């Protein structure tokens, strides 16, 4: 067994330390070590986006990022969007518009969508380009776009 290392990072607002093997992916640290299984693994190769989380506010594919390289940084997952029991506007909108079907891409779609809105990217064409790393096989994306529109207006 390889030696273990210690990693400190903030997950959903709470500073935590983990002892892990050096090759641990951020995705596995979040799911297995931190027990936050909302973030999904759909391909492990950075192509499907199901594992998208926010690293210091920007979306990243957590399956391609080593946990060790996130030392000292802030991670937000789909669980961390719920504040005082209230879901984020994007979560509400996804549910309201029918943007959720099988749900497996949903956490990643939501994380990228939150980043889109926080960066004021509200043009539909540009949203389509920026969401292209979050594959969805169920919805045809139409209702996801609708959710972005709804969340964009409720967010302001």
């Amino acid at each position, binding site marked *: 067994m390889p030696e273990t290392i210690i990693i400190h990072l903030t997950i959903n607002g709470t500073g935590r330390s983990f002892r892990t093997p050096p090759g641990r992916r951020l995705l596995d640290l979040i799911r297995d070590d931190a027990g936050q299984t909302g973030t999904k693994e759909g391909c*492990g190769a950075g192509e499907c986006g199901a594992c998208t989380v926010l*690293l210091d506010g920007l979306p990243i594919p957590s399956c391609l*990022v*080593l946990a*060790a*390289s996130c030392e000292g940084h802030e991670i937000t997952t789909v669980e961390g969007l719920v504040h005082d029991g209230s879901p984020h506007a994007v979560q509400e909108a996804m549910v309201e518009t029918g943007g959720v079907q099988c749900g497996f891409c949903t956490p990643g779609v939501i994380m990228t969508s939150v*980043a889109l809105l926080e960066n004021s990217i509200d043009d539909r064409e540009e949203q389509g380009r920026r969401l292209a790393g979050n594959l969805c096989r169920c919805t045809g994306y139409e209702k996801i776009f609708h959710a972005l529109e709804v969340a964009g207006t409720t967010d302001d």
Partner: protein
Amino acid sequence: MDLSVKDIYRPLTFDEAVAAFSDEPSMLPIAGGTDISVQMRAGKFAGAHLLDLSGVLPRSISADGGFIEIGAGATMDEIADSGPLRSVCPALCQAARKVGAWPIQCRATLGGNLANASPAADTAPPLLVADALVVAAGQGGLRNIEAEDFFAGPGENTLKPGELIHSIRLPVTDPPSFSRFTKLGWQREQIISVVSLSISLHLNDQGLVTKAAAALGAVAATPKRAPSVEAVLVGHSLDPAAISRAVEAVQNDITPIDDIRAPAWYRRVAAATLVERMLEEASGA
């Protein structure tokens, strides 16, 4: 699943990283990790001793004399949105916005995109066209490598053992009148290039091309300049005849192969089409 990593060294400064890598050049440097992780997952570099550069690479994009210096750790997202770069080298910004999808762009670094030396690396053609310098850091300090000399083959670069990419320097004293990047795949986003192209042109008041640079990706063992295209453009205006000569000339500059993404013949057709369209756009600009 954990990647097969024996150990990871996390230096606190870039100098520490350089010193450690000089001592132990068998380490595998990793920055954003978006490309290396995919290769490791496929079984490459098993049992690697990683050198984690993610926190220590220079990351700023700043003017420095006649250059803009881009830290090797600058992400694609930062480059795509960089105001200074947009004004002097829009092609690089366009390319950065086409590397993977947005979450990849928020993590992938310019240094990583170059060091991996994929023939399809999207930032390579604009940097080749801009006569960029890759600044390598090693035991003896910094050394400049011409972008054109940087790529040695698929996955191969000309960094010496123990050298890391420190930054990329773009000469900006004489910005081109036209600078573009385009790529082609079966989809528009989140796609590995089947062919990519960047062209920069200097045009004088009479509309004559005084300086031309072109480079392509995914049509040879490395991203490469297109000297034949450049030669037929310089000294001419961008009239249909000149464009047509460039379209023919590009075939001399490429050696595409059949692979899983496209047949060689298609890449030839695509290179011709992309060169023609980009020059037509330039002629109207």
